[in-house]
């Protein structure tokens, strides 16, 4: 399967029909399902759309299963919603429908987006198409796996910590989370409302632009949505970044700062250096800056406090009363407890416990409110930096996708934990943030992340676009390693 823009060309010149694309996508989806378990639902009766309304008309795509879709099972990869068929579409689904795009499947994710492994969905683990013994990362696991495998040119994702950008890196594709509020969250099953973003996984920066151009816009059903009518992402790409200034966080990229230096870390940093050279060759200025280590070290905990607190509240609607299956029990409390105890996996119950704990009256000041303060300090620091720089550039991780058996044992020490989690800064500030592939380690992809200031999406996309053109990973489709 080609990219959106290539398919548009083929459709417009009648070299292919939408029906043929949809049929092909469905065949590929079933193959991918066998290998990677990317989907909760495959829409076998999906029909091509031959009317041209937009760039996306007639083009097949995949929806993450935490979007409400009329008449289509929408589970959030949770047992609590295993039979839930909504009667309304999320705003973004409605926009894609109006644009004529054709959904062909709903993708597997970490339960309600609460996980970074792709292994906690109620329909089983998602495997990386490059190496099925490895995870994709998550939570937009199925969306990343199917786009990387070439099933469709784009898939919807959502990103609360790095849930689009991390799996994109581990699957060798593009993952873009626009500015908070650019895309309506109405109809997105919430995880942590102040951090949740809708975004997209594609195989080219152009496709990320073309799809978000359709999906963005103010929505009266989401009061946090913004007017972006003057922003035209695809049209704004120039390929010229002369004079653009980027920074990276120097204190996270010094090998000797790490207790144990793996080959993969060395390789990641080396390839990151080469990427910076490409940018410099294109006329950009790239500098390392020092970021307060105390703030950096507080980032993972801050994320846990805020996201778990909001999650425990957001998911309090899962009681089996006004929707979903009623739990057994002779009192309402028993009935609610049974519904929740049986429905949620232990991993997310743990998050609810943390969330409740940090919100308790006696703990709120120390945990939840302090986390809000740290968030504010980090965002202020970033905004200060964005006065002098167009964007931050950083590696997405310490290396390639982890082996599935190590899913529960990812974090070795504090500094690695910070390196693995820095992309959450983009969620703290609602900053536009994009990951593109920038290298390979032992035939497995790694990615680089570019994050910019609020509503400066055009700028960071243009930097990513320019960089993408200097490498050979555009429209890269996963080649299984042996």
């Amino acid at each position, binding site marked *: 399967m080609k990219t959106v823009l290539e398919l548009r060309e083929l459709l417009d010149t009648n070299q292919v029909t939408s029906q043929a694309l949809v049929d092909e996508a469905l065949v590929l989806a079933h193959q991918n399902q066998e290998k990677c378990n990317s989907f909760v639902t495959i829409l076998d009766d999906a029909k091509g759309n031959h009317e041209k309304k937009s760039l996306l008309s007639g083009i097949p795509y995949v929806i993450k299963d935490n979007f409400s879709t009329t008449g289509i099972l929408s589970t959030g990869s949770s047992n609590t919603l295993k039979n839930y068929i909504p009667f309304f579409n999320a705003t973004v689904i409605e926009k894609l429908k109006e644009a004529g795009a054709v959904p062909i499947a709903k993708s597997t994710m970490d339960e309600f987006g609460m996980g970074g492994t792709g292994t906690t969905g109620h329909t089983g683990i998602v495997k990386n198409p490059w190496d099925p013994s490895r995870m994709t990362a998550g939570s937009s696991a199925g969306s990343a796996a199917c786009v990387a495998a070439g099933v469709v040119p784009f898939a919807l994702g959502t990103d609360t910590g790095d849930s689009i950008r991390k799996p994109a890196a581990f699957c060798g594709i593009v993952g873009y989370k626009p500015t908070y509020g650019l895309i309506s969250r109405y*109809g997105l099953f919430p995880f942590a409302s102040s951090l949740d973003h809708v975004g997209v996984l594609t195989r080219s920066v152009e496709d990320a632009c073309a799809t978000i151009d359709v999906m963005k816009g103010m929505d009266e059903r989401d009061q946090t949505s913004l007017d972006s009518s003057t922003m035209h992402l695809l049209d704004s790409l120039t390929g010229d970044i002369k004079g653009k200034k980027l920074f990276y966080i120097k204190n996270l990229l010094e090998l000797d700062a790490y207790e144990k230096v793996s080959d993969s870390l060395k390789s990641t940093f080396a390839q990151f250096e080469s990427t910076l050279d490409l940018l410099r060759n294109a006329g950009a200025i790239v500098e390392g800056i020092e970021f307060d280590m105390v703030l950096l070290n507080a980032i993972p905990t801050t994320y846990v406090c805020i996201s778990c607190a909001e999650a425990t509240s957001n998911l309090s609607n899962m009681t089996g009363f006004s929707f979903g299956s009623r739990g057994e029990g002779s009192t309402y409390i028993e009935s609610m407890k049974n519904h929740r105890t049986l429905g949620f996996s232990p991993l997310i119950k743990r998050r609810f416990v943390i969330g409740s704990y940090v919100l308790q009256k006696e703990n709120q000041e120390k945990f939840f409110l302090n986390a809000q303060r740290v968030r504010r300090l980090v965002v202020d620091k970033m905004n200060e930096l964005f006065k002098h720089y167009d964007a931050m550039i950083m590696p997405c991780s310490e290396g390639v996708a982890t082996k599935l058996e190590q899913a529960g044992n990812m974090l070795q020490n504090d500094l690695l934990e910070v390196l693995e989690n820095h992309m959450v800064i983009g969620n703290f500030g609602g900053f536009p943030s994009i990951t593109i592939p920038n290298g390979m380690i032992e035939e497995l992809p790694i990615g680089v992340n570019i994050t910019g200031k609020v509503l400066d999406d055009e700028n960071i996309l243009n930097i990513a676009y320019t960089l993408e053109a200097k490498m050979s990973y555009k429209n890269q489709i996963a080649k299984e390693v042996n």
Partner: protein
Amino acid sequence: MTLLATIGLEMHCEMKSNAKVFSRGKNGYSEIPNSNVVALDLALPGTMPTINKYCVKNALKMSMILNCEQPEYMYFDRKNYYYPDLPKGFQITQFHHPVGINGNVVIEVNGERKSILIHDIHLEEDTASLDHGFDSTYIDYNRCGIPLLELVTEPCIHSALEAVAFLEHMRSVYKYTDISEADTKKGQIRCDVNVSLAEEGAPLGTKVEIKNVNSFSNVAEAINYEIKRQSELIESGRQDEIEQETRRFDEESGTTIRMRSKADAIDYKYFVEPNIPKYKITKEWLENIRTEITELALERKDKYIKQYGLSDYDAGVLVKEREVSDYFESCIALGIDAKIAANWVTVQILAYINKYELTLNEFFLTPEMLKTIVDKINDGTISSKQAKEVFFKTLENNKKPEEFISKENAQISDRKELESIIEVILANNQKQVEEYHNGKSNLFDFFVGQVMKETRGKANPVLTKEILNEKL
């Protein structure tokens, strides 16, 4: 030992609006159960709240009426708890920055003015309503998301009488401003009552909260019962048995019953609602809202007494319901004398609408029509007795009063015409004239009666008496 009761009230009042406060569902609780429900009211996954600006405006208006301080930004908090009437698992309310704080309002208790201190007023959403059957409970989501204003007083009230006077006052304010129908029968007002007892001058005693009292008479009963219960405990030296607890009022027995102690209080884990961005309340907007505040009952009452010279009682009757007061003010605006208008409204009109169970909106006779009738009395065309007949005929026939003030039944006020009628009567009753002159002065009424008989009651009585005095 003189014990003083100290009472604080929480008054929840459902607001009028087209849509609910955070959803597009219709604000129509009393309609067929579950007929006014949209996805958000059921908390279906992915739904998001959007604030109803009309409700915010009215909340700010009420905040100003209560002389509260308004916050710089409008935002909301989540109050988290699990209960089947709360599908989201949290209620959107205002905990950190309510729409009004530190206010005060002057009320009238038995003719005396008293200032009640307001702790805060906040805007929130109502929960679904639960209807408990024999072995099951029915949930009506119509009520879920209906805008509520919760008003919290300081503990500054000292009797059931004061408490009810305050609630009556607030009901009147809600109705005058049209912010709420404020109908307790429809469950639109619900109260929580805090009562503590202590010796006068001593620090406040242990506070007992009585939840969900749904009528003003129950508020009074609950307070009186609680004062009795607590004073008996204190007077018999069992003071420690008064526990900080939540009780409920049992209507059947007229008593309060323990629900839970303070130790079991729920931790609501309040935090700022992330889906409704902070909204700046501009000075211009506030000033705009201020101009919309209507003159309220107590202000009107003062005006009626001072400016129009009405009695305290009549003024009180006129301002009790806004529509009555508005009717009265229209009469004044049309130029009807205030006392005459007050008399018509408080006697004839209120009696009529009460008898036929009408509202003033359904009442046919407009202030303009009343003006026509009053003018005809003033220019002597009709007597006040005839005016009453015209009043009722107008209402019976739903026709203008002019239809019933014809030449035919007009009062005879023409001196010459009356003189000639009287001369004939005197000539025909010589015997009685003689007797009258001989000292039988009560025969004067006989002659008046004859004139009325002759004119079928249309003779102007004042003029008749005047002429009779001259002629006899």
